[in-house]
């Protein structure tokens, strides 16, 4: 199965790709806090829209792909919009929250597009409790795609045997994936030990 890895643009030679992950993450958090506190005047938002367009361009991220990825947030926004209408809340209030939300997601996605995930996880490695966080992130990011492939393979096998998976089959499939993960974790442990990983606290 072909995966579109999230960090594929991080290998381009662009402006944001050359900055360190920890610096970018710090700036991202600062920007998100700034959006949280922005007053409800459109003039305050325009510079940030301008900055994101410039950053997208100089970091060589295709604008069409970028905009398409931002659309992922819209189902959530629709739910809040409907609840807001039901609540007879100020529509202008909702629009500014929407703007803040779209700006936040744009900057988050720009960060993830231009950062190699392995480099990002290393931010945590030398911090207090960082070792276990780094390990979990590394497992999570690497094995998600492997488990997803496994899920797709079992599902394909089910369909090819004439069994279109319903809810019950999906559940058994998920259970199977966990059992395989459990067995895989034992193999991984042996592989880690054989490569010199020490069992220590």
């Amino acid at each position, binding site marked *: 199965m072909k995966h579109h890895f999230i960090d594929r643009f991080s290998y381009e030679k662009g402006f944001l790709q050359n900055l360190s992950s920890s610096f970018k993450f710090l700036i991202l958090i600062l920007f*998100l*806090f700034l959006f949280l506190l922005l007053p409800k005047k459109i003039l305050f938002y325009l510079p940030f829209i301008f900055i994101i367009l410039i950053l997208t361009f100089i970091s060589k991220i295709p604008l069409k792909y970028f905009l398409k990825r931002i659309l992922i947030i819209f189902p959530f926004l629709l739910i809040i919009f409907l609840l807001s209408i039901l609540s007879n*809340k100020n529509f202008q209030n909702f629009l500014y929250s929407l703007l803040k939300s779209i700006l936040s997601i744009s900057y988050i996605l720009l960060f993830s597009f231009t950062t190699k995930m392995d480099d990002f996880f290393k931010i945590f490695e030398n911090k207090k409790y960082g070792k276990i966080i780094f390990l979990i992130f590394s497992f*999570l990011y690497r094995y998600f795609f*492997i488990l997803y492939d496994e899920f797709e393979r079992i599902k394909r096998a089910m369909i090819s045997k004439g069994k279109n998976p319903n809810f019950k089959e999906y559940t058994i499939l*998920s259970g199977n994936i966990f059992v395989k*993960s459990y067995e895989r*974790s034992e193999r991984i442990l042996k592989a880690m030990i054989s490569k010199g990983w020490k069992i220590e606290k």
Partner: protein
Amino acid sequence: MHIPDGFLDFKVVSGTNLFSFLTLIYSIKRILKKLKPERVPLLGISSAFIFLIEAISFPVPYGTSVHLSGIFLISLILGPFSSFFLSFFVLFLSSIILGHGGILTIGANSFNISFIGGIFCFYFYKFLEKILPKIKYLLIFFVSFLSVLLGSIFCTLFLSISGKILFSKAILPMTISHAVAGIIEGIFTILIIKFFERVKPEILKIEKI
């Protein structure tokens, strides 16, 4: 529901983040104290499993689909604090790489999903199990259902404190829509537990942290 950035105000963001980060630190301390190092790969791969469960959409009647959280299930397998810890990072990573939820709203989202589903529901289930040991599967269903429903109630509460919606008007549609997901989550959890009991019972005997 994962609350995106931009919809919660400063007081809710700071309050929920403070609570979640303190719970996270406590969970990490407890895990580091009790976890056998040979269980590290299982913990890591379980986080990938939670991510997978959240990424899969199950078809439900009337042409719609729903995704599950699996947090209560993981707490039954690995324990409440492991479940909170893993779920917190799954939420964090899904907000970074997929744009589901937000970074500053991680406190609120991890409270609704990880704390309620992982810690609160685990202890609530253990409490109910002591009183009513004969109806184990019914309790698993009920608590799974409750984990989704309580999450939606707190989500509505946080949005209403931030002034985005009115709690009294939004609570009914929010709980009704999440009740469907809760029922599916409940059935899913029972079926998976029964599957483990039949196929690999040692999974349910893992030390719970």
